[in-house]
């Protein structure tokens, strides 16, 4: 799973890294976790934190997060049947082969549907309310991706709006992706 194949990219700028404020309310993550590692202090609870553990000793998809740190949203493609997966996988659901390769995905897409969380947010996300979420059809790839939509407020979004993939870094070094409206 080492070869990288670039998908045709749109002319939009590549995803920008952005610092994400500490959202999980834990103090220990800051002090004990080196920024380049996702391994956490043994006493740090992680089971109420949705952002996955990302190090190679925790997941076989560590490369997804490594590529995201470089600003690329990526996924797996099956070398046997050519299927492009979302989210990335370790075995193909179509032909059941395990010979997959990484490909970068386009960095822009259009909103298929969206809503907003105005109440009832999970732990650590209460202070971010209201926030928009939506399903986005990536430009030039046969994939729909769900994610947070930052930027313009939810009541100024429209179906069909273009959004850009953005990578975010947590204080403990983990990364995740979101969408962002154009400035």
């Amino acid at each position: 799973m080492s070869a990288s194949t670039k998908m045709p990219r749109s002319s939009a700028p590549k995803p920008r890294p952005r610092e994400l404020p500490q959202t999980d309310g834990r103090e220990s993550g800051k002090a004990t976790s080196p920024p380049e590692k996702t391994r956490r202090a043994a006493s740090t609870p992680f089971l109420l934190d949705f952002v996955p553990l990302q190090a190679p000793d925790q997941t076989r998809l560590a490369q997804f997060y490594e590529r995201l740190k470089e600003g690329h949203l990526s996924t797996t493609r099956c070398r046997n049947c050519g299927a492009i997966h979302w989210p990335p996988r370790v075995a193909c659901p179509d032909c059941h082969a395990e010979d997959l390769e990484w490909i970068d995905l386009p960095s822009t897409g259009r909103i298929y549907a969206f809503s907003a969380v105005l109440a009832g947010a999970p732990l650590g996300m209460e202070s971010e309310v209201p926030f928009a979420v939506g399903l986005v059809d990536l430009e030039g790839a046969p994939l729909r991706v769900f994610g947070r939509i930052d930027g313009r407020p939810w009541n100024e979004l429209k179906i069909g709006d273009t959004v850009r993939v953005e990578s975010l870094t947590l204080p403990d070094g983990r990364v995740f992706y979101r969408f962002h409206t154009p400035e």
Partner: protein
Amino acid sequence: MSAVRKVAIVAGATTPFGVRPTTWSEMAQEVGAALFRAEPELRSEDVDSLFVGAAEPERFAFQTHVAPLAAEQMGLAPHRIIQRTELACASGQSAIRSAYAAIAAGLSDVAVAVGIEKMNLPSMAEANTAMGCVMDRAWDGPHGATAPPFFAMVAQRHMLEYGTTEEQMAAVSAKNHRFANTNPHAQFYSKTFDTAKLARLPMVAPPLRLGDCSSMTDGAAAVVLAAEDHVSRYTDAPAWIRGSGQYSDFHNLAHAGSLTDWKGLTRATHEALASAKLTIHDIDVAELHDCFSISEIVEYEAMGWCPPGAGGKFALDGRSDIGGDVVVNPRGGLLGCGHPLGATGIAQAVEIFQQLSHDVPPARQAPDPRYGLVHNLSGSANVHSIMIYEGGGAG
């Protein structure tokens, strides 16, 4: 293996649903007491098997290994099959389907299917986190996904594609809340909501308002299922299982397709109707999974009561009310009763059992029903589960 045996629900009971000052285990005791009160002929030693529908006791009650705990709390000592069934919001019907399969196969004669969920916690952010775990936690959870924004997107697309209105969604909620006013165990038994009041409630996940969403609810429900040669010991008005169907479409939100065409529900409905040798128009009373008002609208369409896009009008025109094509959610639905995840599917079955034996208040009794249907869905409409029942001594 002997031939498949006929199976019926012969008794049922629920606890009050709501924000309850009680624990998971205490509700297990309550529903056990209620079940034995509802069926005086039932003896603990009759119950050879127990199926416990519980979605997230680990999260909400910090408790796993709940099947033997429930048995002990209910005063049961199952000696054939004891297990938990977990299918998020459809854990309850999953318990019933498992009991049905066991009895039909001859592995059990008399089984209890119970659903119990404790959801209200001092910190509701913890409870909302548990709801987030129903989604694909690695890919959907980090974005803050829970059920409301998903079903809000269903509503948004339905409004865009078919012109469905907030007024039509409110008509579903107003109907189910009106029925809940006949059900003393409903979370909103003593609260009235007309469409004007519903339109003034705050948005939770636009375009869904508070009254379009079912609640976080504590509650429990139980039914007794019996093999054909054990039914008459308990009742002369059983609810015979006539058909069953289930279909699992997807899990990750990105794979939800058009959002408005619930193909999995259509397939599960066809399977259930085919196994019962019925059409959807034979169904007199139905408990549909109205976790959100828009859900019930899409369900009318996917299950074949009306064409795609006509579900909003179907509700507004009263065709899912008493006097319409089919009476939908007469106990008050999830919108009126609340939605204690594992208990919902069982409480739906209790209502159909009581509807078919004319054992509900007249204000919500479907006129002389013969066939009843329960639809219980899970997560973001990921799994659809259907049961079809026939009333009377038609075994």
